[in-house]
């Protein structure tokens, strides 16, 4: 019996390790490639560990463009988007989760439909709109179109729906305002979901390439992914070592935030899973 237990545990470990390896491998590949020399990146069978760890690649990548600007822009854009999304998504989710009003289903369906339209399809009208406001090549053109999020409304509405009615009724008896109920009861209750959504949203906009590329024309208003894509070359193939060094600059902040928020994310998934 005990033996069987150990065996099962062992098997569990092996399975988990395999999954970890599968997830870790791309990161491993990125990190080692970032330190290789150009000819080492082209070798097959590949060199797993570079002969020499070339820190110079990071310097070269950093100096290939105004990277400090890219960083500041990326941070400004993603933080602004997150703040705006909180302000619009949470009240909307509350309304959709807790109120019945004329046309609520229709409005919700309308919002869900926007989830299915890819950015590539609507970029031209949005571009023309931004252009007529004189916002092309500004950070505002990267922020305003994402001031709200259909995905966020969907996700947080689900979480709000699970808040027990008794809680809200008790609050109403104590004459709490709707505003107060939303921020003091609903939001803390749905905290893991909200953090998860924030993280998704952060990653999406932090990594977004297409939108900033289309909306901005000058280096100084661009974000990190556009700056990094520049490390590729058209006719002579890519210097993968520099591209990967650039990617490290992009990914490290995401990893840091992920580890900070990890506890909440796990909770959010547990909540939705255990139902």
């Amino acid at each position, binding site marked *: 019996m005990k033996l069987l237990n150990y065996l099962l545990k062992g098997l569990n470990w092996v399975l988990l390790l395999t999954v970890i390896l599968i997830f870790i491998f791309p990161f491993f590949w990125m990190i080692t490639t970032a330190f290789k020399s150009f000819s080492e990146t082209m070798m097959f069978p590949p060199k797993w560990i570079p002969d020499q760890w070339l820190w110079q690649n990071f310097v070269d990548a950093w100096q290939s463009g105004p990277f400090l600007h890219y960083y500041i822009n990326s941070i400004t854009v993603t933080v602004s988007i997150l703040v705006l999304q909180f302000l619009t998504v949470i009240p909307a989710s509350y309304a959709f989760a807790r109120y019945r009003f004329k046309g609520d289903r229709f409005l919700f369906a309308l919002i869900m439909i926007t989830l299915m339209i890819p950015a590539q399809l609507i970029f031209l009208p949005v571009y023309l709109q931004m252009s007529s406001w004189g916002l092309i090549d500004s950070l505002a053109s990267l922020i305003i179109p994402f001031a709200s999020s259909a995905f966020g409304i969907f996700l947080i509405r689900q979480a709000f729906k699970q808040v027990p009615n008794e809680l809200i009724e008790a609050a109403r008896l104590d004459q709490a305002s709707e505003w107060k109920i939303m921020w003091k009861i609903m939001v803390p209750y749905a905290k893991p979901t909200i953090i998860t959504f924030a993280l998704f949203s952060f990653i999406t906009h932090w990594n977004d390439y297409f939108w900033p*590329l289309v909306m901005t024309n000058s280096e100084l208003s661009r974000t990190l992914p556009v700056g990094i894509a520049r490390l590729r070359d*058209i006719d002579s*193939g890519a210097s993968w070592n520099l591209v990967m060094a650039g990617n490290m600059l992009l990914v490290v902040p995401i990893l840091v935030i992920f580890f900070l928020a990890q506890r909440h994310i796990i909770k959010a998934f547990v909540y939705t899973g255990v139902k």
Partner: protein
Amino acid sequence: MNYLKTKLTVGIAAILLSIVIPACGNEANSVQQQSEDGRPIIQFWHAFGGAGSSVEALVEEYNNYQNEVYVNATYQGDYLENQSKIQAAIAARNHPDVTVIEAGAIGAFAKAGALVDLGELVKQEDMSLDDFVPGLLGNSYWDDTLVALPFARSTPLLYMNKNMLEEVGLDISGPTTWDELEEYARKLTIPEERYGFTTATNTWLFEALVFQNGGEILSEDGKKSLFHSDAGVEALQYWMDMIDEGIMKNPPAERGFDVSQQDFVNQNAAMLFASTGSLGSILDSIEGQGFEVITSFLPKKEEFATPSGGSNLVILENTSEERQQAAWEFVKWMTEKEQTIQFSQATGYMPVRQSAIDSEDMQAIYENSPQFKVAVDQLAYARPRPMVPAYHELQVIITIEMQRAILEDGVSAQEALTAAAERGNELLSK
């Protein structure tokens, strides 16, 4: 009371936003019409990533060289991305003055009336175009109007691993005909270890084969497909036979150019068709690997032929006469002898002027690395790529159908190309 509070909060948020957003707009929207020293700004969008630094170095030199205008060069993604941006920007009327357009896409922009007639400007100042390499001017005309000047141009080349050729006792001057290429590939192949030959099975290279076989891709008026004629079918069949025999490797279509180049560099393939633009990076990546690379013309069937690729400089319509003139001065300067030499040396693209090729600087380079010379010599056989707007889409279809013939059992070269041609005729007749 509470209701009021809510309203107030929302109101404050709205006011805050209305302050923040335009402010944020103004700050970054400082694409001034004038540079710091008061010169009018000419916007130049380009599509060169790594090579971009060489373009920007040239532009900086131009800004120091004259003091009439200030050219602002910015990278906008690869050719396709830059071109989509230009289209959107034209619709919004905030497009740049000068940009680069891939040779095969010039037609689409010219047809839409987006490109300035350079012929007029050339005539006005009695400038001669004779010095431009004729093979590279092919993609510069639309309806007999000059709309572009060649800039970053390339052709495919045959790359060979010299050591492998010597090892099996082959003449290192390389194969000159299709039959010889096949023979070379057979002798160089070691089953399970290396392929004699590899290349991206891509429309650009297919064009080369069709031209070599005396065929045409499209009819002269650009309204009908001709690539499914015998010349085209034979060309595709030639590749298919070598692939079936296991002496040519067919890399995955998506990253065909990358993968085939990698196989060559890693000595898993002895011969390769690739762009002249890759020469620099191939030479870099074989450093210390203990073998030498030699290049030669693409082998002929009926005749030698090669499509030219890369991009041309254009001036976009709808800027004032003065700006147009200023843009023209810049475009002219960029394609002059000294600049084309400098750009070619830095990147491996070909010089676009005969006087540049004949110059001592370039001759010295050709002396040292004869691999570069081959590309220039081959220009005598360069042919323009089809320029009709629909070809942009058609070339993707041709690549897909070629892959289908190669990979799927029971699909013949004729069937696949005919299918592509039919789709093509639909697109072309629009």
